[in-house]
């Protein structure tokens, strides 16, 4: 056993222990690690934000892309919410963010999630497997009829649809376990091998 003398390893190991301590119960050790971590990571986000701003907005603007002054001004308008008289001004940048976000969401959804998935369901219905995929899709989609009263047929299909979804959820759950355990193996190797020098 050879305990590490690297300060970085010590900090990493202690913070991992602090995080794991929450499994026992909420305690001051966890709370402290959490606050330091949140502070550092939010600080990093701000640093990255400032640098991105300087590189992708400020410098290009100074070098001649004067139009970039508009988003900069719009960004500043976000802060109008702190001043009651002009608080409404922050609707302008927000509407820009929301409108653009909505447009991007719409255009992407059609291709990959609707048309792509519908055409992928048009399979040759010659094997058992293809029937399962085909019926599973139709049944689970029929579960989402929200404004039509369920009749005899749709009542059954939507119930079956829920069963198909549950099967998918179970599968996704079981399939994810490995990745999660891998993450813990990584941390345990750090604690036992790198920090404590066991093994």
């Amino acid at each position: 056993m050879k305990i590490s003398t690297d300060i970085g390893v010590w900090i990493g190991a202690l913070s991992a222990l602090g995080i794991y301590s929450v499994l026992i119960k909420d305690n001051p050790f966890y709370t402290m690690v959490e606050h330091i971590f949140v502070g550092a990571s939010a600080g990093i986000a701000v640093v990255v934000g400032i640098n991105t701003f300087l590189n992708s907005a400020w410098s290009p603007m100074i070098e001649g892309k004067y139009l970039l002054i508009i988003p900069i001004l719009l960004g500043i308008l976000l802060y109008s919410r702190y001043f009651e008289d002009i608080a409404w001004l922050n609707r302008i940048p927000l509407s820009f963010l929301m409108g653009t976000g909505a447009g991007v969401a719409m255009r992407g959804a059609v291709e990959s999630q609707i048309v792509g998935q519908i055409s992928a369901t048009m399979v040759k219905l010659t094997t058992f497997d293809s029937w399962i995929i085909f019926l599973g899709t139709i049944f689970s989609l029929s579960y989402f009829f929200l404004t039509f009263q369920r009749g005899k047929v749709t009542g059954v299909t939507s119930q079956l649809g829920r069963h198909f979804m549950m099967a998918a959820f179970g599968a996704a759950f079981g399939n994810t376990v490995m990745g999660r355990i891998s993450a813990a193996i990584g941390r345990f190797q750090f604690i036992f091998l790198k920090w404590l020098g066991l093994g």
Partner: protein
Amino acid sequence: MFVDGRIFDFWTLIFMTGLMMIFMYLARKGMKVTIRPIPGFDAIEEAVGRAAEMGKPVHFTPGFGGLVAATFAGLEVLRHVTKLAAQYDVRLIVTVSQPETYAVTEQVMRQSYLEAGKPEAFRVEDCRFISSDQWAYASGVIGVLLREQVASNIMIGQFAAESLILAEAGNTVGAIQIAGTTNAYQIPFFVVACDYVILGEEMFAASAHFAQDELHLGSLRAEDIIKGVSIGLMIVGALLFTFGNEGLVNIMIK
């Protein structure tokens, strides 16, 4: 003029949005549309009521997403949760991960308290920006759930791998938990760890459910018709393909 491979997608979008607008118009003109019960939404009122009885706060988070569709749905639910909280005099704590989502969330909360007639109930420190880092956000939310001893935990929006961390922490304090997301890889974790799960598209029906908003009900009716058309297309396309005609599939990938 069209970008390759997007012709059919474009007309699909036009068809869908057109149908939604027509039905919104019809609904405003008086067409009756009713919505089937969504247990997760019914449970929200119960959850807020429970918090009021216990004298403990409600926690809500619109998730880890930026301004994407699932986040918008979460914020729509938040509107109603805020009004319920105002009505029951319950403290509502909201945690947010992405800065642009925070900018909108704070606004939604403030506005909803105003609409509920209690603008003074809004407290800045109850709408918390945690961190845009996924794990820092998760650790911060664990902290809020455990230390504020919330009675109810509502999570609706876009979630990634942190979903189960939040849900298990909520379970630890015995909170009643209601969750919803469209991400098929995260729903399983909500299904196993929460009391009520709002599955996929159901979460977009919040205003129709809570406020019986007629425009919203109209658009839901249009969505149902689109689902019916999709099912019809799949059946026709698969049958044609089975019997050797690839025409429909080829049109769709244009």
